[in-house]
């Protein structure tokens, strides 16, 4: 993985186009709207932070943007693919190649080493074994864990585990990095360390980054801040050029 280039993202074209997107859950005959009539454009290379109270639809929005769930209605266009109506196989392919996920709880497989956890992201892409190992090593090096490749998650600290998760998200060289409370389980020092790392990677790689967080200090680093309230998104800050 080449991380030597120093590119400041130049958001220009819209990578995402959401029009009238709603996600409604049904539970016991009741309808629970998690996202309501959302219209949104996200440019390539943009960093969008999403804030909001618990249960107001932040994670649901992230899952819709990451192809992990489908909207109940509306159009969700990503790079020319409508993720609302595309086949499951198509969505899976887009997910495998274009999206990198970082979760609050790291979601590493406890029985696999750091190397194997990162490698798991390349398997759906059919990358050859030797190349996989090379890219995994580069990804772990880029997050400062090149010497921890054989450690299983239980042998790593919380910050190190999240670094492994970041390496797993980036090893496939995705177009979008989707992070759901990536520092929620970390102490303050580690939080700053991880956010610093994400900031660097975003700048260096021209990633589109969508980050869900409660932490306003972290959100303020983003180009745009959107706040989810009762399923509706409102933009509070926009520092894009």
């Amino acid at each position, binding site marked *: 993985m080449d991380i030597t280039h120093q590119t400041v993202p130049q958001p220009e074209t819209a990578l995402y186009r959401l029009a009238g997107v709603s996600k409604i859950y049904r539970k016991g005959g009741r309808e629970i709207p998690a996202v309501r009539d959302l219209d949104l454009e996200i440019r390539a290379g943009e960093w969008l932070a999403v804030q909001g109270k618990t249960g107001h639809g932040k994670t649901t929005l992230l899952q819709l943007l990451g192809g*992990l769930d489908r909207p109940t209605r509306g159009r969700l266009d990503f790079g020319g693919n409508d993720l609302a109506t595309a086949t499951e196989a198509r969505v899976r392919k887009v997910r495998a190649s274009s999206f990198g996920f970082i979760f609050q709880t790291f979601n590493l*497989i406890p029985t696999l080493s750091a190397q194997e956890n990162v490698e798991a992201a390349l398997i759906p892409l059919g990358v050859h074994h030797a190349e996989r190992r090379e890219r995994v090593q580069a990804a772990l090096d880029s997050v400062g864990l090149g010497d921890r490749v054989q450690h299983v998650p239980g042998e790593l600290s919380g910050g190190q585990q999240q670094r492994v998760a970041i390496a797993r998200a980036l090893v496939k060289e995705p177009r979008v990095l989707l992070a759901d409370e990536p520092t929620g389980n970390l102490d303050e020092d580690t939080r700053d360390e991880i956010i610093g790392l994400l900031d660097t990677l975003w700048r260096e790689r021209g990633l589109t980054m969508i980050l869900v967080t409660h932490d306003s200090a972290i959100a303020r680093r983003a180009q745009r801040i959107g706040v989810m309230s009762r399923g509706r998104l409102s933009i509070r800050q926009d520092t894009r050029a």
Partner: protein
Amino acid sequence: MGASSGVKAAQAKVLRALYGIGTDVTVTTQPKARSGQQRPISGQASQGGPGPGGSGSGGAHAEVCINGKCYTSGTIDTLLSEDHGLFGAATAAQVARLHDVSAAAGGLLLTDNRIVLPSGSNSQLTPPTSTSVDGTDISHPKLGPLSNGTLTSGRTFTAADKNADVAVVDANYATANKLKVGSTVTVAKTKFTIIGIVSQPEASSPPEVYIPLARAQALGTDPATGKSMKGDVNTVYVTAASASDIGAVQQEIEHLLPHATVTSSSDLASQVTGSAASAAKLAGDLGKWLAVLVLIAAFAVASLLTMAAVARRVPEFGTLKALGWRSRRIVSQVLGESVTTGLIGGLAGVGLGFAGVAIIDKIAPKLSATVPSASGGGGLQTQTAGPGGVFAGPAAASHATVAVPMSASVTAGVIALAVLLALCGGLLAGSFGGWRAARLRPAAALARVA
């Protein structure tokens, strides 16, 4: 299943004792009706009271008649075929030539009856004795009762013993009569030197003395005719070409010898009664349903555990789906793990099974089997008719109850079946677990993390 096999093994042990290792079928025939008298030996006793010129205290007077010839003193020692009729010399060879027969040998199952009559009026009458004697075809050492014995001392017959007065005796008989190799045993007034002692499996009454067939034929008397048995046999031991041919062999022999009684191991199996047979039935009936119940329970437990394991790993599968893994690949992953677990569990179960078998073999209760005497050693039944009197006649069909140690047997088939079932269990449980995992939406699976 192992218990059922163990019971069958116990039955086989009884049959083996009855039958001999290499013998699949025995051929015998009913004795011919004896003209003029019902028994080859008949006895009567009279007791004379002290007469006027009597010489003392009075005494017993016994008279024993054999084939019409009566004795009042001396030793009567006859070798008779009491339970079976005789075949001609060529019978064994005829049977051996049958299509599905591998080998056939003739033998003589005889009874040596010995009565010592009092020599004088004051002499005490000694009880009659009988010894079962087997005339063994030395040229077929793997057929007949002797083939089943284990030589504990001395040697067995060789070709050079064909016409020699040598004998092999049963270990129990030797112990009871304080005999050892080099001792002599008297059969039909002829002394035989003991060359070997054999131990027979604990079962019915094996022959007590084995002598070469030619000598038995020379010394034996046909009770029907009172003539020598030269060239005759009363039992033909047959080995089928294969186990599946036994039925055909039976039919072929019945066709060749329509009046003969043809007995196979399966016929004898039906005669094994007592706790071994009851245990076989119990193991067959109850054991079958218990095995089915245990199997269902094992499958249910394995399935529940696998599904619980899959449920615990739902976030893991959700993560893999988020990474773009195909559902098919996740199912394969779960399936592979389940089958591997099943295989390891199956092998561990086999190990535990062996341990269980060892424990069962240690603590299993002793069973008994009631078997009819197949050796023809009917013996002589005696009844005292009065002071000094004796009645002698052939014994009724005898039965013996023998102890049969129960053991659980483990066969390669059972082991293969156990591993196969474990694999199938893993496969089924894994398929179901994998199917459930694959059906989950990634978002729903990831939501479980929270």
